[in-house]
């Protein structure tokens, strides 16, 4: 049985595939999946991970679908078991998924994950002829909801989202009027 009968996941699926650099693996479609599998595995283990923004964007739908399979079908479903086995190569993580993560979302609608954007980081790449080469990275936080860590957004930052600065005022009004049409 495939995932065709599952409801649509509650996160955005990009129209253009993000380019994922496959360091250490020969570039191919398989290598891309390996990168995504690493991220999903790490995310299930750590529940909140900080990584490059494009990787977080790309991995989120896969993680979301994996949790959804657990919630909708349960551990006895053949397709779910196959997916869990592939995406989570470490056995203990499959147990964690079914016994810890999935029960959290039994009564909750998708999305089961959250994605936040951090300020870009500028990191030194290498030094050549005493000249420093720096590169700017967009950073994102991908997390499974209802994790035991402190919330990424504090109450104050939630208030900041409603800040009355000019851009916020105009954009909020524009979106509101756009939705009403």
């Amino acid at each position, binding site marked *: 049985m495939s995932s065709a009968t599952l409801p649509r996941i509650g996160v955005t699926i990009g129209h253009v595939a993000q380019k994922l650099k496959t360091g250490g693996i020969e570039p191919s479609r398989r290598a891309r999946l390996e990168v995504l599998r690493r991220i999903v595995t790490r995310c299930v283990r750590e529940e909140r991970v900080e990584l490059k923004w494009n990787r977080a964007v790309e991995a989120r739908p896969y993680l979301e679908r994996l949790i959804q399979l657990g919630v909708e079908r349960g551990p006895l479903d053949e397709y779910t078991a196959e997916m869990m086995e592939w995406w989570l190569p470490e056995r203990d993580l499959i147990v964690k998924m079914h016994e810890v993560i999935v029960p959290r979302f039994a009564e909750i609608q998708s999305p089961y994950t959250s994605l936040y954007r951090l300020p870009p980081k500028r990191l030194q790449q290498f030094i050549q002829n005493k000249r420093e080469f720096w590169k700017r990275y967009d950073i994102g936080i991908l997390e499974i909801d209802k994790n035991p860590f402190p919330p990424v957004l504090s109450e104050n930052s939630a208030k900041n989202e409603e*800040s*009355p*600065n*000019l*851009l916020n*005022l*105009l*954009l909020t*009004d*524009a*979106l509101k*009027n*756009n939705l009403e049409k």
Partner: protein
Amino acid sequence: MQTTLRLPVVYRKIFEFQGDQCYRQQFEDSQQNPQWFQIILRILLNFSIIFVKKYMEMKEKVDKVVVNVHTDDEPLPVLLNRNISTSYHAFNHLSKHVADNAVLVDVQPNIGGSYTSCVNQPLQDQATIRKIDFDSSEFVNLLNDAYWRSCALVTAAILKESLDVNLEFTIPNIDVSSGFFHVDVEGLNGNALSRDELNTINRYAKSFIKNAKDFEVVSIPSDLSDEVPSNYIVRIGDHVFPSSGLVIRSTSQIGRYSILHSKSSGIETVSVGGVSLPFSQPTSSYSWGLIVKNALTKYQKSSSS
């Protein structure tokens, strides 16, 4: 002894006249004047000769005043010229970056209550000043109002430079929540500007804003408030406008800007509306498109009502 005054050009030229010769008739008789003379003429006709005389009294004496600039550590004392130096000069002692980013100033005088002033407004007394920029969490509504008012004034200046006719402007007080600003223009015989004309004006507006023209501000003394109908006089480039409130430091603080639409709002009056965002609040072209579309819809609705 003659004292060199470091004031904006318009006011410096005013000081070069002798008070007894400041008669309105003499100005009107002079037909071949340079551009600054026409500006002075406009000020004198509109805002009374007393205003000029008031500033001429200051010509002979330039006092020094110590102003403390608020910093994260200790306040930085700066020696300035009373009624001549502005907060911008004071902030430059700290850093040019701080001075350029300042939009408004919170002034806490040694005597009296605190108030908010423009960055290019001369300082009058000993005080502690603190810059307010677009990232400040305080005074947000004040900032928004000042920005909206400044955009309306810039629109008036742009229209005046781009249209080869004598125009009179009225800057109405518009709330930011309305989503657009507008100016009422007299002198176009009630003919609204076409889309092509607005496109051309918008192209010119980009270069006008890019030139980083300062908003030079003089507040009207309370004893002249009966004669002058506004609180401030603002000069942008070669143009002088009355203003009912505070304005930003420079056109360089204006980011995305667009004049959207023009409509007849009376027999002689034409209203020109636009929308803008500060330079320090960048947004994607998609979001800007939503804001422009919303502003245009609201402006057109306001025209039909």
